[in-house]
């Protein structure tokens, strides 16, 4: 992934400010609770939801199993339909391809549809360095761009801002980027949406180059699908002469028919609608309608490393609906910025450390940014067992072991800072394999229980700083069993 968020402090450190910011907590609580209830109603309308979820999971697993085959098929189909396909092994390569394509058109500005892939590669900054200005056109992305801010949610990148803050950003910043905010702009959402409409319209109408991602690519037909609400997507996909789509390699579905599953599960999971207002589907180029030139950039950037992990590869099923963020008690309190990645929330906690590796402080801490309550798994429309992957990644952080980085097999060293945990686990293993010692230890612990401190000393202090130590019983369980059952009933 890009260096945008490198040097981020660990999750607990980054979350500390957010947890103490009452405005942010209020904004997040309000937004996530609103969408949570709506989603539950939208999902309840379909009595075959569980079967759709299972089918979605199976389609994605099948695609991932034969990803090489389907990638080649997408390439063939898009090329046959008049598009040009490029391959990018990492973020830097994707950005260079896009910058070169834009420069070849002679243009110095582009309009962008909200796209996680280009956020992940840091495309806007890369274009800026080449003298190309990228205008974000999704309302929330616009709020983030104008505010010089970072996105904090997959679907609603400005979820951390309330209407009053948005009005202030529009008033002070819109003039710098183009048409200023209307006089007397209030904080009603309808007026704010109108201000965005006016501000962006001139940019859409004159745009010569559009940049997008895609929600799905259909291997058999070469069709790309963009699901959106505002119409900014349609503007960017149809008005410019050149369209460049940067799409993660895991976005493939094999057949046209497969869309029937995801077009039912994605809108209900993300915006809690039966269907989102606009979905655009295009196959290469069409004479006389839409862009004359179409480029597809297939992006790896850590996805194949993720694919190599038996447990972790299920994260590649993700269709970026963000339902897991909206139900997560940790996300609700910590906010999206603490995750130090464009992918926040539970899915981010398993995706970022796999795409980027667990080398940095933030990535090594992300698998711990969870209470493992499992709500994310329950709502996931492709049944990603996020808690399972979190535990797997915790193991990788603490113990190290084999992994794949940039296509190469490596053996990761155990992360620093987990020495006490490793020592405790080693001691536990020894004790559990030596029953005599375990019994003696338990008795000793029970007899000395009045002398135990309330918090742990040394490296255990941080652990007991936010947790109560378990109370030690006066008599170990095994002694109690022996005494009350007299060693019978299989107590051997």
């Amino acid at each position: 992934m890009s260096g945008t968020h490198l040097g981020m402090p660990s999750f607990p450190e980054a979350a500390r400010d957010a947890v103490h910011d009452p405005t942010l907590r209020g904004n997040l609580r309000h937004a996530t609770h609103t969408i949570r209830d709506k989603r539950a109603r939208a999902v309840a309308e379909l009595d075959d939801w569980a079967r759709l979820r299972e089918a979605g999971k199976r389609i994605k697993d099948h695609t991932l199993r034969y990803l090489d085959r389907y990638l080649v098929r997408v390439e063939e189909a898009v090329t046959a339909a008049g598009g040009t396909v490029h391959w990018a092994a990492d973020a830097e390569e994707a950005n260079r391809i896009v910058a070169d394509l834009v420069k070849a058109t002679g243009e110095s500005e582009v309009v962008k549809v909200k796209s996680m892939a280009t956020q992940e590669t840091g495309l806007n900054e890369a274009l800026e360095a080449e003298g190309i200005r990228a205008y974000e056109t999704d309302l929330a992305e616009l709020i983030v761009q104008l505010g010089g801010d970072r996105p904090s949610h997959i679907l609603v990148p400005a979820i951390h801002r309330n209407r009053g803050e948005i009005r202030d950003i529009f008033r002070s910043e819109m003039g710098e980027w183009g048409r200023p905010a209307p006089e007397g702009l209030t904080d009603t959402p309808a007026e704010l949406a109108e201000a965005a409409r006016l501000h962006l319209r001139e940019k859409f109408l004159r745009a010569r180059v559009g940049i997008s991602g895609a929600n799905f690519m259909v291997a058999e037909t070469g069709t790309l699908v963009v699901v959106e609400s505002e119409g900014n997507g349609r503007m960017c996909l149809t008005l410019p002469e050149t369209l460049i789509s940067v799409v993660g390699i895991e976005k493939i579905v094999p057949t046209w028919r497969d869309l029937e599953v995801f077009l039912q599960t994605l809108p209900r999971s993300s915006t809690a609608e039966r269907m989102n207002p606009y979905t655009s589907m295009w196959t290469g180029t069409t004479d006389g309608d839409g862009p004359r030139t179409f480029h597809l950039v297939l992006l790896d950037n850590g996805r194949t490393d993720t694919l190599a992990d038996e447990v972790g590869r299920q994260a590649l099923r993700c269709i970026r609906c963000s339902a897991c963020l909206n139900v997560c008690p940790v996300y609700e309190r910590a906010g999206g910025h603490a995750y130090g990645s464009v992918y926040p929330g539970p899915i981010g906690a398993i995706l970022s450390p796999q795409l980027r590796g667990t080398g940095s402080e933030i990535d090594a801490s992300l698998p711990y940014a969870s209470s493992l309550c499992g709500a994310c798994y329950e709502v996931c429309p492709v049944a990603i067992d996020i808690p399972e992957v979190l535990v797997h990644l915790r193991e990788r952080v603490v113990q190290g072991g084999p992994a794949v980085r940039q296509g190469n097999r490596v053996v990761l060293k155990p992360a620093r800072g987990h020495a006490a945990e490793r020592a405790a686990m080693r001691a536990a293993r020894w004790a559990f394999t030596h029953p005599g010692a375990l019994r003696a230890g338990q008795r000793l612990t029970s007899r000395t229980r009045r002398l135990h401190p309330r918090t742990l000393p040394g490296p255990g202090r941080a652990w007991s700083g936010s947790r109560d130590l378990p109370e030690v019983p006066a008599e170990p369980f095994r002694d109690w069993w022996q005494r009350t059952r007299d060693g019978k009933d299989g107590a051997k």
Partner: protein
Amino acid sequence: MSSRERVLGRVRRALADVPADGAPVLRDYLREHGRRGADETVELLAGNLADYRAIVHRCTDAQLPEVLMRLLAAHGSQSVVVPPELPPHWLKAVDATRVHDRAASTPQDLDRVDSVVTGCAVAVAETGTIVLDGSPDQGRRRITLVPDHHVCVVRVPDQVVSSVPQALERLDPVRPLTWISGPSATSDIELDRVEGVHGPRTLEVVLVEG
């Protein structure tokens, strides 16, 4: 080594010891939700369109020219974009200036037009969706995007299906497709839905019988 070979090589190595996945995907989900007659399906479409703030009208084929005239007049439209092969009688009572979409028309030209009237390819009752496929009665994508007022005529019951799976069966992926469910909207401010951003802020759907 090209990046193409590099990426494909990484994929193959990652999958080297993964067992084959021969089982077909079990599609035991429903082809449609609930059992309805043709009339009830049209009712459901009307209800779901209205639920997402499209304005729904119903009439017979004979009444259509008058209904379209009334809708454009009520919107105060001085001009209307006409797709290349819109049935000519649809607009015979309309006073507004007809603007024909030409290859040379710029987005700015379209921005000065008040309304657009089109047919559609298919409508989906369960989701309240109309789908355009760029056929000659619908025109290229930009004409239903830039003008602020879109009137879409749906022939019922033939153009109406119940569900998303049924709609996909009827559509040709080679054509550029636009699925429209209500006027443009956003949930970006506090995750609350607001209608009217970049696409047409008013969507009127006329369900025509006969």
